[in-house]
């Protein structure tokens, strides 16, 4: 069966150069990077080289990179790390209603630990407006955490504007940049944020490794206590393979991101035009332009997302309804709900996210397949026939 992978926001295929780069670390280079002998030394150098590559990509200093196990751990480290360090100075945190569960549920946890959290809404296009954040700030706000780009809609948040305003108020700014990383330019040096989350497996590296960029001078509490790894900010023997993989993946991004995201944007636009041109009653969820170049989120009216997803899977097409971390339930996506999407439309929403390895042939095959599935499901739909309902 032909397969098409359109779920790059969930995870990405491993780049062959990444696979080559990690091969020695699955073989003879097995040392513990903290060991002072030869076995540790080469491995330690590999980690520091990777740190430098990643720093070069973000425009940060190498020592501002803290390696973790995942984007989720990085979000936990950023938010709990600030809360536990600054909890005496204030008990209020501001985030948005469309954050990834790693941010959302960390904030909920902190609500049970005596913190107050304001979840600011988004507008109908899915964008967090700076004024909404400004209005949420309180005298005891210690942290604002707003994602750089949304995982479900691809909406790009005005982080520069929000961050500048937040930091002017003397408040720390965190952004979960897991989805934005590698898709749009990020310059940590000029971006007004203190903490920035990234992940390896979203950029053609391996699962099990991520990181947090912590601006020099910002102090956070560790959440994994242990050895002195990562200068005391994250205990535990380093995931050498995962870190080396990230180093390679980020160096590839540094040299080729602009070209690759332009290519991906062309494919995504071809896909989007094809669908909207051939299938009636589609709704684009999210901002038409202020959006990642690889992502499109569409509601297929009068059909359920779940049924679409399963049918497309049977035709070899991988996409998702909602975030992979929440799909599996028939609940409408909280992200779309927060945007004020009609609940019925939200039920029929699918996210397609393109990336490395996709081709025009993939796009054309997917458009045909989706058209076929939509026609079939609409013919069966108890939600009634499109021609007989009033479309808003």
């Amino acid at each position: 069966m032909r397969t098409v992978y359109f779920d790059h926001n969930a995870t990405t295929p491993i780049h062959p150069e990444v696979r080559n780069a990690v091969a020695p670390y699955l073989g003879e280079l097995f040392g513990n990077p903290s060991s002072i002998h030869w076995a540790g030394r080469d491995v330690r150098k590999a980690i520091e080289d990777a740190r430098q590559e990643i720093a070069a990509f973000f425009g940060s200093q190498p020592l501002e990179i803290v390696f973790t196990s995942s984007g989720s751990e990085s979000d936990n480290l950023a938010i709990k790390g600030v809360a536990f360090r600054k909890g005496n100075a204030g008990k209020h945190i501001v985030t948005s209603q469309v954050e990834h569960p790693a941010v959302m549920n960390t904030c909920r946890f902190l609500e049970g630990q005596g913190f107050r959290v304001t979840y600011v809404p988004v507008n109908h296009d899915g964008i967090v407006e700076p004024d909404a954040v400004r209005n949420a700030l309180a005298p005891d706000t210690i942290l604002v955490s707003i994602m750089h780009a949304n995982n479900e809609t691809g909406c790009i948040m005005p982080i520069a504007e929000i961050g500048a305003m937040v930091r002017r108020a003397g408040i720390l700014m965190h952004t979960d940049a897991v989805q934005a990383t590698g898709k749009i330019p990020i310059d940590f040096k000029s971006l007004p944020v203190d903490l920035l989350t990234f992940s390896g497996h979203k950029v053609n590296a391996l699962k099990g490794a991520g990181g947090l960029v912590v601006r020099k001078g910002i102090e956070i509490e560790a959440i994994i206590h242990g050895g002195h790894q990562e200068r005391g900010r994250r205990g535990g023997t380093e995931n050498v393979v995962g870190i080396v993989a990230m180093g390679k993946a980020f160096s590839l991004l540094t040299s080729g991101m602009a070209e690759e995201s332009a290519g991906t944007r062309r494919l995504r636009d071809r896909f989007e035009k094809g669908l909207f041109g051939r299938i009636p009653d589609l709704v684009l969820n999210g901002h038409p332009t202020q959006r990642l170049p690889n992502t499109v989120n569409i509601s297929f009216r009068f059909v359920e997302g779940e049924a679409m997803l399963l049918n497309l899977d049977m035709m070899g097409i991988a996409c998702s309804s909602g975030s992979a971390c929440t799909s599996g339930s028939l609940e409408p996506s909280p992200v779309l709900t927060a945007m004020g999407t009609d609940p019925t439309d939200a039920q029929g929403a699918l996210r397609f996210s393109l990336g490395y390895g996709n081709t025009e042939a993939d796009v054309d095959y997917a458009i045909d397949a989706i058209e076929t599935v939509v026609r079939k499901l609409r013919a069966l739909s108890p939600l009634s026939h499109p021609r007989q309902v009033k479309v808003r």
Partner: protein
Amino acid sequence: MTARRRILAAMSGGVDSSVAALLLQREGWDVIGISMDLYDFSAVTRDRAGTCCSLDDLYDARRVCDALGIPYYVLNLRDEFRREVIDPFVREYATGRTPNPCILCNEHLKFRALLRKADELGAEGVATGHYAVIRREAGRCRLFAAPDRSKDQSYFLFSLESDRLARIHFPVGEMRKSEVRKAADAAGLPVSEKRESQDICFVTDDSYAAFISRSGIREKEGRFLDSAGNVLGVHKGVLRYTVGQRKGLGIASKEPLYVVAIDAERNEIVLGTENETLAAGATAGRASFVAGAPPAAEFRATVKVRYRHPGADATVRVRGDRVDVVFDAAQRSVTPGQALVLYDGDEVLGGGWIECASASRS
């Protein structure tokens, strides 16, 4: 195969020690990069650039060694550092002196403990990025100021005697700072841009007084007196003052007042006019000479009483392990606890630790 001669390069991550290691490697030495873990900086602060051995510097040093392809080790010398540097620093301060811990660190850590480590590691000696010159002559070594006077660090090295100098190398000692930078750039060494390491590395963030009071020494208010014994006011504890200090005394007066002397035992501080801070001479104890002995019982020398002191011509008389110095012209701010270093032109003859200044007769 003949084994290459091995040497330890003390690495701070800064440009000087990095280029020192680079030059030794080019000369064919088997270089081992070393940093000293002296102090738990994380207990005080996480980000402290610009001192010798903070956490960021260890990272920088490691990356330089990676670039040179040489092994890099961090040696734990915390006990020695506490015993030989911090404890004496606190004790000296508490007795009203203004100590110079950087010289103690050179004397006991860099050029004693590290030489011991060199023995353990089969290395002939130790190299650092100091700006000073060692001349190796038949049977002895002599120490000279660096030609780049703005960088000269020979003052901090006076206590090294000839047989130790024989095992010490200052590869950048005769270079200009700009040449050192150029060499680092040309070799692509990842040295960081940071300020010069001149502050006392273990006193972070806050004042010496706060550091010392954390060390368990209690501060007590006492009296400011003038030289005639009249009470001028109340001081906040002798730790907070140093000889020659003018600012922060909190005493109103027609003429600017300076700290002339500190008597920790009586908890009294004598203030006086600028003239009263002038000293006709000084006595230094625990004196040592690079050559192992003084050139004569009485001799002429140029004397520096602090790091940035341009030097004053003087007559030196040796009295056991003490030296008495009489300046040709009276000198300001001769401060007990600081090093007194004797030069013959560019050459370091030796020195000692200032015990007291003798009052100016003028």
